[in-house]
């Protein structure tokens, strides 16, 4: 029985680099992106095999779903910008066979190629050697974390590390996400061109069924994160997937979300997290040292806020720019593209 799983591991470990190599060697960019999506799925299986269910959940939501959609629509945008460019790039060899006689075509210099390959191999060997030399890879921090679990307020070790023991990491990470959203918003605006398309009946039904389910699953993941795999990132990623689906289907509600509300949703997570951190200091503790026995409640509170923010931020990153023009603000009880959905589904 262990043999079978061992074989499973071998196949998986060999497939990953092979897939990566094929991905970069493929002549077509689109194919490379599809291979990348498949690689994300395989990575998720690998995390499962390596006993990291939290990471597997995040990879399943982000690596396999969101990143793929991101790359696909970026590819589409590039293509629309210049159709000929991509053809020239991806099928370059075939096209040049016609335009340039083969004896005139010059390949990359073999010397440079061999040299770069040699340097790469040396570098990787050094890296592997230094990896073997790294001390402390055996014991790790596992016992230390396990010893402090009683004070963390949650049962899941990874959640405890993320939001309690190394909470500042997560705080800074929220800031990185926020900065990324700011960067994208300051760079471009969303195009108006695709608006006005009405989703067909099948797509509308799919959105109507999937989006509420995604929101429920996101809430479930945040809730379950305190005791086993799950948490704000995974929940946020699933929420973001709901937002992306809405953006893809071009549901009207997404366009009607007031810009101010969207901004508040973006800020919500980082702001609350920061306020909590500082408030903990006010109580006499250190930054992010939750007072007394209430750590579990604080963590759940922060996690729900961050999940909403992560979802909205990732969906905004997918939209790839500032929302077009401030439309007439209707005050709804929505919180952003993530949860504006129930309404969109039923409307």
């Amino acid at each position, binding site marked *: 029985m262990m043999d079978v799983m061992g074989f499973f591991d071998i196949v998986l470990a060999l497939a990953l680099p092979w897939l990566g190599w094929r991905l970069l060697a493929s002549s077509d960019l689109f194919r490379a992106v599809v291979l990348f999506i498949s690689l994300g799925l395989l990575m998720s299986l690998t995390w499962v095999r390596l006993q990291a269910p939290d990471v597997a959940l995040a990879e399943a939501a982000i690596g396999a779903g969101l990143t793929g959609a991101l790359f696909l629509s970026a590819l589409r945008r590039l293509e629309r910008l210049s159709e000929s460019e991509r053809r020239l790039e991806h099928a370059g060899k075939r096209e040049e066979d016609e335009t340039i006689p083969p004896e005139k075509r010059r390949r990359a210099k073999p010397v440079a190629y061999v040299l770069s390959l040699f340097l790469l191999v040396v570098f990787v060997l050094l890296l592997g050697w230094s990896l073997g030399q790294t001390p402390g890879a055996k014991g790790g921090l596992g016992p230390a974390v396990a010893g402090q679990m009683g004070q963390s307020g949650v049962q899941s070790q990874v959640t405890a590390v993320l939001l309690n023991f190394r909470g500042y990491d997560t705080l800074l990470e929220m800031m990185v996400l926020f900065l990324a959203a700011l960067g994208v918003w300051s760079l471009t605006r969303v195009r108006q061109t695709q608006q006005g398309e009405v989703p*067909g009946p*099948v*797509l509308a*039904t*799919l959105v109507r*069924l*999937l989006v509420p*389910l995604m929101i429920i699953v996101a809430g479930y993941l945040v809730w379950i994160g305190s005791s086993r795999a799950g948490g704000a990132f995974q929940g946020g990623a699933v929420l973001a997937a709901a937002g992306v689906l809405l953006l893809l289907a071009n549901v009207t509600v997404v366009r009607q979300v007031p810009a101010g509300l969207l901004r508040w949703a973006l800020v919500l997570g980082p702001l609350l997290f920061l306020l909590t951190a500082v408030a903990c200091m006010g109580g006499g503790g250190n930054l992010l040292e939750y007072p007394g026995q209430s750590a579990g409640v604080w963590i759940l509170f922060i996690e729900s806020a961050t999940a909403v923010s992560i979802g909205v931020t990732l969906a905004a990153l997918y939209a790839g720019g500032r929302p077009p023009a401030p439309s007439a603000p209707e005050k709804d009880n929505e919180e952003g593209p993530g949860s504006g959905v129930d309404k969109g589904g039923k409307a």
Partner: protein
Amino acid sequence: MAFLHGLGMVCILLGIPFFVSGTIGLLRFPDIYTRLHALTKADNVGLGFVVLGLALQAEEWNTVARLLLIWLLVLIASSASCHLVARAALRRKIQPWTRP
């Protein structure tokens, strides 16, 4: 109980060939529409048998519910996305394969 367990095992083993034939169909069939057909068989029937087998062996009801939910989700998602892909292919005027 042993009977249900055995029945579940049979169902799982029945499901695997559907996945394999889905892959084979994906590799061997001539055009996009026929490949869609092969793919949906793997999605619906293959996963259906696996889920059925696992559900027969499950000890708790909520496991059964979760398994069925997953299967339903895959059904909805795959049928909708296959429909969309097929429609996009038709719009691109990709001709269905006919016997030469």
